[in-house]
């Protein structure tokens, strides 16, 4: 089985990289880009039947830093 983990900075945490991307889009002439948030996608190749709780545990312990990041698990 495969799972995809989306890690994003929490709402309210300033994302300087997203902000730089937003500026760059503006200077390319793309108007109306009001915000950009940059995160990560981590794809996991897992033994079949791995419980979602285990994947959440992986996120809590390593894949995300929950002080600043939130995560979402998508089982594929």
């Amino acid at each position, binding site marked *: 089985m495969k799972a995809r983990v989306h890690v994003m900075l929490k709402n309210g945490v300033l994302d300087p990289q997203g902000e*730089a991307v937003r500026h760059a889009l503006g200077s390319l002439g793309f108007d109306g880009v009001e915000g950009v948030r940059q995160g990560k996608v981590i794809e996991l190749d897992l033994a079949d039947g791995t419980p979602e709780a285990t994947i959440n545990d992986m996120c809590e312990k390593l894949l995300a830093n929950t*002080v600043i990041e939130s995560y979402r698990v998508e089982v594929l």
Partner: protein
Amino acid sequence: MRAAVIVFPGSNCDRDMAVALKAAGADVTMVWHKDAALPDGIDLVAVPGGFSFGDYLRCGAIAAQSPICKALVAHVERGGYALGVCNGFQVLTETGLLPGALMRNAGLKFVCKTVDLKVETSASAFTEGYNAGDTIGYPVAHHDGNYTVAPDVLDRLNGEDRVAFRYTANPNGSVSDIAGVLSENRRVLGLMPHPERAVDPAHGGTDGQALFRGLIGQFAEA
């Protein structure tokens, strides 16, 4: 005083840290990240700067899961001292031994220069060699030094006098200009600037000497 300096793949300030500790009188042992235990009788564990594990995933995240860091956590839980500089500070936040997190610098640039710091408290083994309010210069060299912490935790840090150093001119966007913080028992210090790079006149400054001398002096008195 017996100190251990952890070496991760990608550490690059480990030997500077050892030199600074030895110059102040410590007996220093280097320990490898795969070691599951610290040598007996270690008083201080120093987590040096560098780019452990290539900063993969997040700065310090992989290092924080290494066998030696389990021993480090146990050492701190026993009341042992720990000092994390730069990448070492990032490792200490990733292990949960210090609150908060270090994010990408607000200006997105790697910052490499000597900065002025205000000593906020002399009430710790690390800062007792200074007076609160002193302005000192330590070099910084980091891309991810933007200290972030939840507002309620920030209030606690301020209320408990746990901010050790603040930047006088914030180089990285850190909340409240914070450059270094102490643990609740004041025996763990993490800071982005490098005291070990300011201990010899040839470094261009010696303001870091008081940190190492003060720390090691405490053990000499004990």
